[in-house]
């Protein structure tokens, strides 16, 4: 076991899987010599050579199109998009090509790959270094969407994603890159894609979150305890495919739900979860489902701490559903 930060766990997963599987190749902007702007690929080019860890020209559509071509020809690419805010030039390649290839070719072609990208706010990145754009991609059939919230899951989920036969968008909460540490086994292991985790059991209210909002919810749960509400916190870990059973089981127990995400409220992934609960467990609900989310505005710079959900705002929402 090693005590690693989240970004170190990502690097460790890449290192581990590259050593085991010669098909795994990394590509992206500054990932080679510089080891990635967040150091997620530090030293990997030195270890595995320039053909397996490639500094590409500055073009996201190029990076993903290249990865698709390599994937259909037998490689297992793990392209990096330097910031999720810069994924849009590759939107066409991801949404029209990568996600649909298996289906449109009647299963004749597939292009497993893991698109790694740091996402989210809280680091003074303004609106082009802070976005949490999961909803666009969760809305795209053919793509899996995975988001770890701690070092152990980061390694296990990343290895599982690389071994998966479908393309995976792997979103890394950059705010947690260095602020969380945890025990990570040295060997290869996987954490199942499509399985949520109850990270704090509770009986009064269910808090549902992913990525950097998981620690926010855990802190909120602490704030709520002396105020008389025992919160259960679910870390979804995978948005697509969604672990409906874990959500519903918790809701049937608590009857009260607060969903927390960084992205704007309208058409955020919280709406999907809310719809699921209404469809499948409406009779268990004791109060309306509440969403604590970013605002329906672009991501700001100076006032980002007001834009982003924080423990107190989540706790206020818990108060609302318990008092209902």
């Amino acid at each position, binding site marked *: 076991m090693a005590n690693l930060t989240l970004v170190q766990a990502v690097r460790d997963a890449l290192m581990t899987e590259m050593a085991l599987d010669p098909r795994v190749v990394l590509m992206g*902007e*500054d990932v080679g*010599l*510089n*080891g990635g*702007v*967040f150091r997620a690929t530090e030293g990997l080019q030195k270890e595995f050579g320039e053909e397996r860890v490639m*500094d590409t*020209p*500055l*073009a996201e*559509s*190029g990076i993903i199109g290249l990865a698709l071509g390599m994937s259909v020809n037998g490689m297992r690419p793990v392209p990096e998009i330097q910031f999720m*805010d*810069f994924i*849009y*030039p590759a939107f066409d390649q991801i949404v029209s090509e990568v996600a649909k290839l298996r289906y449109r070719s009647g299963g004749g072609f597939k292009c497993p790959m893991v698109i790694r990208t740091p996402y989210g706010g*809280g*680091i*003074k*990145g*303004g*609106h*082009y*270094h802070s976005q949490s754009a999961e909803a666009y991609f969760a809305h795209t059939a053919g793509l899996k969407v995975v988001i770890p919230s701690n070092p152990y899951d980061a390694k296990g989920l990343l290895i599982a994603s690389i071994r998966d036969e479908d393309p995976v968008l792997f979103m890394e909460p*950059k*705010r947690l*890159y*260095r*602020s969380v540490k945890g025990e990570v086994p040295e060997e290869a292991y996987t954490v199942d894609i499509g399985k949520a985790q109850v990270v704090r059991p509770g009986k009064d209210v269910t808090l549902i979150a992913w990525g950097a909002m998981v620690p926010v919810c855990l802190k909120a749960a602490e704030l709520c305890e002396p105020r008389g509400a025992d919160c259960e916190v679910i870390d979804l870990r995978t948005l697509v495919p969604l672990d409906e059973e874990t959500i519903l089981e918790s809701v049937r127990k608590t009857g009260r739900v607060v969903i927390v995400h960084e992205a704007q*409220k*309208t058409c955020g992934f919280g709406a999907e979860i809310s719809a699921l609960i209404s469809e499948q467990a409406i009779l268990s609900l004791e109060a309306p489902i509440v969403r604590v989310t970013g*605002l*329906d*505005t*672009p991501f*700001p*710079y*100076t*006032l*980002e*701490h*007001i*834009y*982003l959900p*924080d423990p*107190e*705002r989540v706790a*206020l929402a818990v108060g609302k559903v318990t008092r209902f």
Partner: protein
Amino acid sequence: MLEKNSKLKKKTTKKIVMKAPAVLRADCFRVLDENNRPNEKVEPKLSKEMLIRMYRNMMATRLFDERGMLLQRQGRIGFYVPSFGQEAIQIGTAAALKNSDWIFPSYREPGVFLSRGAGLFEMLCNLWGNQSDVCKGRQMPVHYSFSDLKLFSVSSPIATQVIQAVGASLASKIRNEKDIAITYFGDGGTSENDFHTGLTFAGAMKTPTVFICTNNGFAISVPTQKQTGAQRMVDKAIGYGMPGIAVDGNDVLAVYSATQEAADRARRGEGPTLIECVTLRMGPHSSSDDPTRYRDAQVFEAWAKRDPIQRFRQYLERKKLWDEKKQEDLEKELKATLAEAVEKAEKEPPPQLDTLFEDVYAELTPQLVRQKEDLLAEQELRGKFENTSEAFPL
């Protein structure tokens, strides 16, 4: 044949040294030689006032960048992007424009903003993202925007401005106005789709656009030689059906002349031009970057000797337009104005909470009205919001 070719290719790729060249490429147009003496045949005939104004703007840019980096290092602002070594490109191009021309800059052109007359105080307020920032604290530092000066809002995503400048210049052309558009981007920017569509559209539609490619050797850590298989960025021009010229980016007079000619062509209705300004980025990519991880010290030293400000100063001194005393006075004056503006800008409070909801649309939507009410009510309840932001890690 094929096999032979591919072998050949392999060999040549191996030979390419993956670092920026230590000397200026021989094909670059230049006015000043390496001793900073002008080639009289191509020396632009500029008035004394104009030459001094250009020098002044170069110095103002250097001091602004030094101050920006210092403020970041002191923890007074969150982030900064310096343009050290690129002053000649910024001031030379800007000097060749009319005030009615459109400018679509990247994030590394403070000197273009200063040349056009953007206010120091306003620019500094953007570094703090405070209530007097024209962007209302929504973008990171150095993302200026001055709509009244036709200085287009800086965007972080690379190269998006290239095709937009083509659109702006097309609008002028349709209305038979003589205004042109100029746009700036880096060597890395030439790999993005928006660069290719920009030059494709401009070539096809013969728009009055001037493309300035600042080839500073790097896109963060990636050297230009890894960005493209082309030997020179300027070679791309021919493929898009427009003339191109490579210039010494550390020679303000060469940059000025090339831009002037391209602007004249555009105004005459002869279409776009690509100008490759060859230089070396002398600072870090940004305040979050450590260039010693990837930059060759010798190459850096070699380019440091070609400092564009020093070179231009020598030229002016030989013309008896400049001396030590004038330099001292100028620095004193510029530093004093800067210090005064910094002091004033730093005192400005952050934007008000309700500004968060402005400008998403021309008018607030019902959803935004409700979210604003909710947030104001939350503020009532909580008193103040704890600032949980962490420092920008890049």
